[in-house]
């Protein structure tokens, strides 16, 4: 089957078969009349070649975006993305889809706002609707003291050139009437930090869209192929060993959130990372009740409503370091009771499903982008709980690093050498916002 598909799409690129590749309302209409028989595959399923210019390990959002920007921005098309399972199957497909750049430090702002700006154009850039919904993101405050800290953050964001407003409780109520406005609440709402450009996206679509776009640029996406080791020759990485054989390349990028330390051990470098389970929850679909994203720092819980109608709920990390993609009941109780505290009207809504991803937690909760310490291997990891929103920027700067061997200005502060110099980028330190 795989080979047939590959043949078909090879023919299609030569224009021998008229397959529909471009997406638009018109093409959906036209295919609708033909019973949708003419849609081209989103990506090929090629067998790995012997060698590539760049190998990206990890077919999640970051890895696929990296491959796409390698091809698009740097003209490097002989690229393989190697994924041990199905593409988008890690944290890209397990998160709560929040996109925002409400950061405190200019270094973080530059990175995450690049991401928001790329997201703003992404659907048209890759001709795939990732449903970036800029419905706004609010961080609630529950006391006057928190309002003071909030104004510190809002000012920082404005100075750094990011849209930010300080909302009072009336503004909050207008945007999210379903929240808890009782004055005797344990955490009464005083106001919020609001970023209007923040919002949510369709997480799977980001992976699929980048994969399709990268594939169209000639990138080989190789699923069900696990890296079992690195080819190290004279201390230098020359490729990878996989369950489908050896694949050579002088430049290997590793973007495998949750398993970064496992690859590090194979590659002979160290990381300052612990893996934790991060849980997420979704309820049954209900008609629209929530038009923005709200996060309460006091309970650590946040939620939004998906386009399908389900309430998408998240909270803090589980407390036990873990490589298991499942969560623990104490955190479930903490997060869900926090949600009802935030929005008591949700008490009767039914939880449909909960799951967990494994995230890389770095000492300052900021990502690590840079040379790994083993020549030829570069890392993109440590995104903690916030990797999804950073996918376009993570791919953009990582592609730059892999293509040129040098940091993009935006990624330099995130080099792992900061743990030696002490120049940590601990957002929680300045903004009081958890990632």
């Amino acid at each position, binding site marked *: 089957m795989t080979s047939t598909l590959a043949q078909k799409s090879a023919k299609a690129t030569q224009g021998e078969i008229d397959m529909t590749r471009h997406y638009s309302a018109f093409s959906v209409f036209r295919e609708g009349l033909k019973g949708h028989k003419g849609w081209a595959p989103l990506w090929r399923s090629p067998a790995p070649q012997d060698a590539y210019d760049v190998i990206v390990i990890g077919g999640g959002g970051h890895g696929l975006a990296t491959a796409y920007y390698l091809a698009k921005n740097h003209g490097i098309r002989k690229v393989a993305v190697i994924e041990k399972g199905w593409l988008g199957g890690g944290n890209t497909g397990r998160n709560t889809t929040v996109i925002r750049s409400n950061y405190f430090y200019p270094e973080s702002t530059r990175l995450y706002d690049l991401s928001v700006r790329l997201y703003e154009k992404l659907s048209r850039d890759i001709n795939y609707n990732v449903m970036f919904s800029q419905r706004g993101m609010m961080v609630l405050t529950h006391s006057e003291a928190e309002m003071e800290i909030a104004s510190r953050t809002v000012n920082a964001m404005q100075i750094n050139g990011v849209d930010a407003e300080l909302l009072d409780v009336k503004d909050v109520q207008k945007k999210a009437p379903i929240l808890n406005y009782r004055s005797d609440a344990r955490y009464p709402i005083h106001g919020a930090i609001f970023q209007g450009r923040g919002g949510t996206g369709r997480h799977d679509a980001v992976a699929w869209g980048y994969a399709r776009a990268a594939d169209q640029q000639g990138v080989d996406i190789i699923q069900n192929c696990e890296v079992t080791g690195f080819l190290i020759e004279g201390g230098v990485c020359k490729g990878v060993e996989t369950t489908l054989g050896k694949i050579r390349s002088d430049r290997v990028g590793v973007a495998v959130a949750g*398993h970064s*330390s*496992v690859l590090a*051990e194979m590659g002979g470098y*160290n*990381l*300052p*990372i*612990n*893996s934790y389970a991060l849980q997420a929850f979704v309820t049954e679909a209900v008609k629209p009740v929530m038009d923005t994203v709200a996060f309460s720092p006091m309970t650590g819980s946040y939620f939004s409503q998906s386009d399908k109608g389900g309430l998408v709920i998240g909270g803090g990390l589980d*407390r*036990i*370091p*873990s*490589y*298991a993609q499942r969560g*623990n*009941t*104490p955190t479930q109780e903490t997060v869900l009771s926090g949600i009802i505290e935030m929005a008591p009207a949700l008490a009767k809504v039914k939880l449909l499903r909960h799951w967990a991803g494994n995230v890389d937690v770095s*000492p300052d909760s900021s990502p690590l982008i840079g040379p790994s310490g083993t020549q030829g291997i570069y890392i993109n990891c440590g995104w903690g709980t916030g990797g999804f929103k950073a996918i376009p920027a993570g791919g953009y700067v990582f592609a730059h690093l892999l293509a040129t061997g040098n940091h993009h200005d935006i990624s330099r502060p995130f080099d792992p050498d900061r*743990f*030696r*110099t002490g120049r940590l980028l601990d957002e929680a330190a300045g903004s009081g916002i958890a990632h």
Partner: protein
Amino acid sequence: MQRFSCPFCGLRDEREFHFAGEAGKTRPDTTQDVSDKEWANYLFFCKNTKGPTREIWVHTTCQEYFIMERDSVTMEVLGTTAMRKDTA
């Protein structure tokens, strides 16, 4: 909900425990020269092993630190021991 065995108190709910880091790290003698790299390795870097691990945990209710061996994938607890042999 997991349960861990405090060497002093026995089986208790996971909520009573706190992860304190990987076992086997020694604080460098800071009265001597310690390189940036050595200090960063001690302070930040870790193995983060997938599978059987050896970690330091604290039972917050009795405040005793102890060593726990467990599997970071299956969550199976392989054993717990007091830090000092004479108190176990």
